[in-house]
């Protein structure tokens, strides 16, 4: 179905380059006690953005570490006041429940106090999610033309909070409504140059993508339930095991197929449309293989490092040389940090990058001739550079 008027996504990042970049930036982050993390994220993004291309033209990330750092400082000033006071007051009122739960009712109270604590932050997290996406859009360019997103973070926070409550109350049955409406809210406010994105479609259409979640749930409830009722342990364990796996993969299937549906019903301007064809099996394969590789490397390092350290420590243990012992503990602490950095870099290289590559290379833009008609949009200087997202730790490694 690819025609000369289509653009197929391409990805040209390599493992070696990304691994090198990730290790260098993480080390700098450790040495600077975390301050470099804003620059680290920015540099990883620059690499990944410029590895993504369509029609031979790379994307570009124009954000800077400095503006992220400043945005973070702004957010800190606001959040320091909000979080400090909220958490202490909640703790004060929570104490009477948390102290000694003796009855089930008190246990429920205790748990709900903990969740109220989370709920106090939740709207802020949604606010931060929108601001972060808006910042990333404003700092993304392709063919020299900026993407952009309108303001609307509070509107998003309000809706997302409402839909989240709805989703919890309906035990996840209303997830398609929440996912669709929130995606539409963001997409309808997104722009490429002077062309606006629009999300079409119906939320009920997403229920098809949920089929494996339902099957998994049925297996879990029915088979495990029967096994439990008949007191046949084997059936019960098998039911839980199969149902749980099915549910997990079903969740992945839902997300992959929701992506497909969203792309198929998305337009840019009047003439540009999209197709996304990521495959659940491929995504699962990438995650599992990546996980196995990372696990094997980590295990090997832990074995070698553990043996070496045990050897050194046991040879020192008798000598009562406390200076050397202290030195060894510092070395171990440093090695621990390096190992964490290594795992982070390996995850980026063996899971995140392959996944991005898969999503990008299965993405098609239709109607590329219309792109020539799209003009530049003005730059935005006043965005807060997702400082709230950084402060609240929203979003992943980059």
């Amino acid at each position, binding site marked *: 179905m690819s025609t000369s008027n289509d653009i197929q996504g391409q990805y*040209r*990042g*390599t493992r070696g380059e990304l691994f090198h*970049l990730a290790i260098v930036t*993480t080390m700098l982050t*450790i040495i600077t*006690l*975390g301050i470099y*993390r804003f620059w680290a994220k920015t*540099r990883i993004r*620059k*690499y990944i953005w*410029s*590895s993504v291309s369509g029609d*031979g*033209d*790379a994307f*570009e990330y*124009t954000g800077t570490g400095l503006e992220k*750092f*400043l945005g973070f*400082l702004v957010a*800190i*000033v606001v*959040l*320091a*006041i909000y*979080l*400090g*006071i909220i*958490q*202490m007051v*909640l*703790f*004060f009122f929570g*104490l*009477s429940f948390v*102290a*000694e739960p003796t009855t089930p009712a008190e246990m429920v109270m205790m748990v709900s106090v903990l969740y109220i604590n989370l709920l106090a932050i939740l709207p802020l997290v949604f606010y931060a999610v929108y601001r972060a996406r808006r910042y990333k859009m404003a*700092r993304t*360019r392709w*063919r*020299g*033309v900026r993407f952009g997103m309108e303001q609307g973070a509070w509107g998003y926070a309000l809706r997302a909070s409402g839909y989240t409550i709805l989703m919890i109350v309906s035990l996840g049955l209303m997830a398609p409504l929440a996912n669709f409406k929130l995606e539409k809210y963001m997409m309808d406010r997104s722009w*490429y*140059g002077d062309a606006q994105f629009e999300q079409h479609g119906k939320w009920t259409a997403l229920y098809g993508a949920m089929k494996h979640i339902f099957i998994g749930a049925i297996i879990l409830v029915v088979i495990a339930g029967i096994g439990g009722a008949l007191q046949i342990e084997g059936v019960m364990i098998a039911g839980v095991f199969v149902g749980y796996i099915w549910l997990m993969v079903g969740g992945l299937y839902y997300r992959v197929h929701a992506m497909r549906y969203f792309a198929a019903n998305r337009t840019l301007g009047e003439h540009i449309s999209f197709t996304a064809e990521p495959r659940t099996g491929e995504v699962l394969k990438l995650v599992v293989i990546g996980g196995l590789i990372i696990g094997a490397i980590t295990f090997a390092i832990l074995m070698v490092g553990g043996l070496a350290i045990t050897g050194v420590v046991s040879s020192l243990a008798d000598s009562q040389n*406390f200076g050397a012992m202290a030195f060894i503990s510092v070395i171990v*602490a440093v090695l621990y*940090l390096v190992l964490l*950095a290594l795992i*982070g870099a390996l995850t980026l290289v063996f899971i995140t990058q392959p996944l991005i590559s898969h999503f990008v290379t299965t993405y098609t833009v239709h109607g590329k001739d219309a*792109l*020539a*008609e799209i*003009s*530049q949009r003005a*730059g935005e*200087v006043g965005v807060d550079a997702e400082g709230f997202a*950084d402060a609240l*730790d929203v979003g992943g490694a980059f």
Partner: protein
Amino acid sequence: MLEAAGSYFDGTSAAKHKVQVRLDEEKGTLTFDGESLRTAEHWRLEDLRLLADQPGGGWLTFTRNIDGEDETLSHEARLSVRDGVMNARLREAAPLLHKRDLHQGVALRVLKWVSGAVAAVALMLFVILPAMADTLARLMPLEREQQFGRAVVKQITWFLTQSTEADITCTNEAGLAALDKMTARLTAKMDMAYELNIQVFDQPMVNAFAAPGGQIVLMRGLIDEADSAEAVAGVLAHEIGHVEHRDSTRNALRAAGSAGLVSMVLGDFSGGALAVVLAEQMLETSYTRQAEGAADDYALEALGKAEVSGSGFASFFEYLLKLQGDMPDLPVYFLSHPPSQARADKAHAFADAQAATTPVLSEADWAALQAVCD
């Protein structure tokens, strides 16, 4: 003159211009033109910038530095060159390819916001949260505080024994009676707001702590290592001081408020959790120092009014100071109650100035207390 094919985007539209790029090193310019381009573009080599952190293979994308208000300080136009020879040559010929251009006055803005954020966080951590914790600790109903205290003691028991069932309190009646006598002697002339609940844990560590709501726990190791009943009385009076000052309630409230804040500032970089624990520990120590001084004062006042010698308390500090030399076997007491020569001196000075004192316990009672866990 070196020539190569490239793609040019003029920064005003998303249209792609296929161009032929020519590098003139003598003039120091990069010139390119193409069918769809109305006039040829001339870029000075010193204005040429390479976009940062691109993949190395294949093509490279360049931009042009201008003095503008754009967020990147570069022209919106982009030039992609896919010719390896040309790219290699450009890397050598363009002098400022990797320069990071900054807006004017950036340093001042950074300074302003860094100091603003540091001030806000410091104000929260050292003024507002402690003040709030103080008020809330006063507002807390006694019953709730006692409940909380019992939960804390239970948690510590669980932590020490790794079991929810274990009971490690010492139950020797004669020993507990001696402890009661000591407590009564110390508190008789003090104005007590709390009803004390004092227990001894059958644990070897040299430690004692006060939990909210009048809960005090002495560890067996402390009684074993004490060279007199007066030393135990000093530590006990010190812990009673913590109880009366509501220190642990206040500390718990303050920690609840500052924990989130500290982890937010330090972020989630690798090993961040470790840094958060350390920072929280340091913060704790700085509050503790004040609270310890106040509890010492309380202890000395109580010892004075009860006419119990302060020299036992002083000798206990010296015991701890001596231990400080032998690093590895650090008693836990040291961590939450940093001993110092100043504190020992203060107790000594107090003991020297004391008028008549009488032993806090009789020989028999002291022996009973030492056997409280048998």
